[in-house]
């Protein structure tokens, strides 16, 4: 009888968790965000505003007296909060897992005067979409700083393949795609142990590949218009991949790590009449005239490390530090003064949180806050060709909305809630500084989780290192990891990544601990349960 009871409880528990999972994966229901300060970016701010979201889009917005709240909408009270369009990071490498290189594949042992005819550093046909491995932790860290849309490109190679634009609405790659492919990405890098092994070789290689594509295209079009008496062009997958960019002039992104890279890119853009973007470009202000003359979209990185070629790194440590703290952060401000249009990106930074810190530095260095906001909303949306659906709060646009505790990019401001494609996400708050603790929870624990559906017995295996808690939780439903755990004084919190029917959902625990007991609440989307645990005494040997 007891076994039966347990299995009933287990399945009831699973059902509730699954329900939570289903509701979070679907396009969100109708929401009414009420009593917030709306900063639409496309127009003046609205105090006491209401935003209605339906089917993933913004249905309407305006002052409280003008917008009718639909009956079916879930009302979200946003007293004192600011609503901004979700931030767009127009060049990142998030979610990318590069394909594993099979040993021995590289043609390093070629004993020849020249390497193989086709020696493509990386394939221009490489699709960032195919490499996507979205992770919850990354999604959370993006939401934490208010980023709802990212352009993702592979990082390495001269031809780094083609990028994809994603709405960070979960972890399912297909559901996230806004635009694919967006652009071909080119890095001014070199190959190891094969051509091109030098920067000058890379330039020649790029030129030759654009020339070859144009020749291939000429041959193909001549052949298709009049094929009699003409040898057919040999099918070339590499040139086929370049064709849309070299001939049809789809966008090409040049990643410019220093001012000479900007000049290199400008030469290629002019020689081959490419439709180009400059990205990175953290020395753009030093060649502002050239950038203005080129008149191409600029995606400026918030990475303020001076490149090793910079004059500022050869003048001692003090100067180098000053460059990173004061000189390079002023890039965006200088460009704004020069009336150059640009978007800001996190390219080169490790964590999204670094990006916010660096935006603050850029603002401190003279970039007006509203320009910084535009450079992460409407400008990248327009530059990437999605200005009609993203980048500002307007009826009919995608409901990418962030609710913040104060003015955006302010040091004290926190992102409280994020809507992506109208799906509501609670935002994890950055971990507080843990208080010292006298407890050591390391060991095995027996626990009961009780909720409306009954009681579930589980075993905990906890590891503690200073304040950090990790471990395993096991039950009849399987074994799950305990992550992100913090013990601050007696306050204990951790996350359980539960896998149910191949789907992962996160449960968060908050409670208090004593040396031999733990009590608290497990919460998840759509419900909660109580957890009580006691230590299993270790057998004395």
């Amino acid at each position: 009888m007891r076994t039966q009871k347990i299995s009933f409880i287990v399945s009831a528990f699973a059902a509730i968790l699954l329900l939570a999972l289903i509701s979070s994966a679907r396009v969100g229901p109708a929401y009414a965000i009420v009593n917030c300060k709306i900063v639409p970016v496309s127009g003046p701010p609205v105090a006491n505003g209401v935003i209605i979201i339906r089917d993933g889009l913004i249905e309407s917005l305006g002052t409280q007296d003008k917008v009718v709240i639909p009956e079916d909408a879930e009302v979200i009270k946003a007293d004192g909060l600011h609503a901004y369009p979700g931030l767009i990071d127009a060049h990142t490498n998030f979610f990318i897992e590069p394909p594993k290189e099979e040993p021995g594949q590289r043609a390093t042992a070629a004993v020849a005067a020249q390497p193989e005819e086709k020696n493509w550093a990386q394939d221009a046909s490489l699709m960032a979409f195919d490499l996507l491995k979205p992770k919850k932790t990354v999604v959370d860290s993006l939401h934490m700083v208010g980023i709802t849309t990212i352009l993702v490109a592979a990082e390495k190679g001269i031809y780094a393949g083609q990028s994809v634009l994603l709405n960070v609405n979960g972890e399912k790659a297909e559901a996230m795609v806004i635009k694919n492919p967006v652009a071909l990405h080119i890095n001014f890098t070199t190959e190891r142990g094969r051509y091109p092994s030098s920067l000058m070789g890379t330039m020649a290689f790029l030129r030759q590949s654009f020339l070859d594509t144009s020749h291939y295209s000429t041959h193909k079009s001549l052949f298709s218009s009049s094929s009699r008496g003409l040898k057919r062009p040999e099918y070339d997958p590499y040139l086929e991949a370049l064709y849309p960019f070299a001939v049809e002039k789809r966008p090409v992104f040049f990643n410019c790590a220093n001012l000479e890279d900007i000049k290199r890119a400008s030469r290629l853009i002019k020689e081959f009449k490419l439709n180009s973007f400059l990205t990175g470009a953290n020395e753009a202000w030093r060649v502002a005239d050239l950038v203005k003359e080129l008149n191409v979209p600029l995606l400026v990185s918030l990475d303020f490390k001076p490149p090793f070629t910079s004059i500022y790194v050869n003048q001692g440590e003090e100067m180098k530090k000053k460059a990173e703290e004061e000189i390079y952060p002023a890039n965006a401000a200088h460009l704004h003064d020069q009336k150059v249009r640009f978007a800001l990106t996190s390219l080169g930074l490790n964590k999204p949180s670094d990006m916010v810190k660096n935006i603050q530095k850029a603002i401190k260095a003279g970039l007006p806050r509203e320009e910084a906001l535009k450079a992460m909303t409407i400008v990248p949306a327009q530059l990437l060709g999605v200005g009609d659906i993203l980048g500002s709060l307007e009826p009919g646009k995608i409901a990418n909305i962030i609710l913040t505790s104060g003015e955006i990019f302010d040091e004290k401001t926190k992102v409280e809630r994020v809507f992506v494609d109208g799906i509501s996400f609670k935002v994890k708050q950055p971990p507080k500084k843990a208080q010292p603790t006298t407890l050591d929870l390391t060991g095995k624990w027996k626990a009961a989780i009780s909720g409306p559906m009954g009681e579930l017995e589980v075993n905990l295996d906890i590891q503690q290192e200073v304040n950090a808690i990790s471990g395993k939780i096991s039950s009849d439903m399987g074994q799950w990891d305990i992550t992100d755990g913090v013990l601050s004084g007696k306050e204990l919190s951790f996350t359980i990544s539960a896998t149910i029917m191949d789907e992962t959902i996160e449960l968060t625990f908050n409670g208090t601990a004593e040396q031999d007991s733990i009590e608290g609440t497990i919460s998840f989307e759509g419900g909660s349960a109580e957890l009580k645990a006691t230590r299993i005494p270790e057998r004395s040997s």
Partner: protein
Amino acid sequence: MNRKIISLIVCLNLAVFSGISSGQDLLIKNGTVLTVTQGTILNGDVLILNGIIEKIGKDLKAPEGIKIVDAAGKYVMPGIIDSHTHIALSGTNETGDAITPEVNMRDVLHAESPSIYTALSGGVTMVHTMHGSGNPIGGENIVLKMKWGKTSEEMIVPQAYRTLKFALGENPKRASSFTIGTPRYPQSRMGVNAIIRREFLKAKNYMEQWDRYLKAKKSKKAAKNIVPPRKDLQMEQLADMIRGKMVARCHSYRADETLEFIKLSKEFGFKIACFEHVSEAFKITKELVEEGVGISIFLDSWAYKVEASEGIAYNAAYCTKKGVLVSINSDSGERIRRLFNDAAKSMKYGGLSADEALKLITINPAIQLGVEKIAGSLEVGKHGDVAIFNEHPLSAYTACQMTVVEGEIYFDRAQYLKEREEMEKKKKEEEKKKGEKK
């Protein structure tokens, strides 16, 4: 911090480290003017207006308010020209292939390389900065003026020849073993010669292909769907060699391989401007003079490597006396500041006159680079590129005091030393303050 203040700091810092002063008008007064080509003027003046030498003589009258440098007791000579170096570049060799004429040093200029300032400190105002010697056919080189603090484009000397680097002997033979790690053809001198020949044959074939295509295209009976040949950047460069639009600069040490390369140039009709290093040049002066090919060599470094084993200290002086156009090069970002010392050694080893010795680092390299109309000597109408020394530049006790490019002072030793002293003083004071706080 306020942005304006930051920009000011940036400017000041640049100024401190580069010694840039503005203005392209300059009057250098009362120096011993070594024109190199037109004799020496005691207590002479050099007047530079808009970067060009306006007048050379005594007691020159200059426009009011012009910047004046007092060179009393000092020696004023044309800016030194280094015919062969690899400074101010991001990368030297394209090691991925033995044949790389398609690469161009113009694409990898590094205007912020401190080696430019080092060069200025030795009176150097112009360099021929080159692809390395790893490949039988290397890349296209470039001639730069040492305008420290200016952009890479502003440094390029458009009047100079387009030059392509070739390399014979040990370096291209061994390049693959210490660069890409796996052996690569060619591995012998005969291989180096053969691969260059093969590439020129390919280039001729390529040119014929294009000629045929262009002819066919013009013909009235031409088919509509005629496909142009593939544009090949390697072949385009070698075709430019054959067409005489570029000249060869060929790294070679031994007499035999040098003569073989001259044969190649005759076979394909390309021009050699200069051989590099040629320790055995003294053995083939007759051939070099006949072909009108110069040499750009080290003064020292005889017998420093296997293929230089028959090198002699007298190479520069002997070849000069035999009528070969000789220049002394640095091939280095450090030796570049002591080219005048090297030139002086040709007086000791071979007995060149002072003017002959100075020519090795001024007008001779200028001729080799095709810039003798604008540089290489102090003459009216040439660029105001000047180096000022405290002693005669060929004295062992000399040091360059000031270097001027197109009337602009880019290096001023006295000012630099003063600023360095102030900075060190300031630093010490700050450290002392920190110490007191602790």
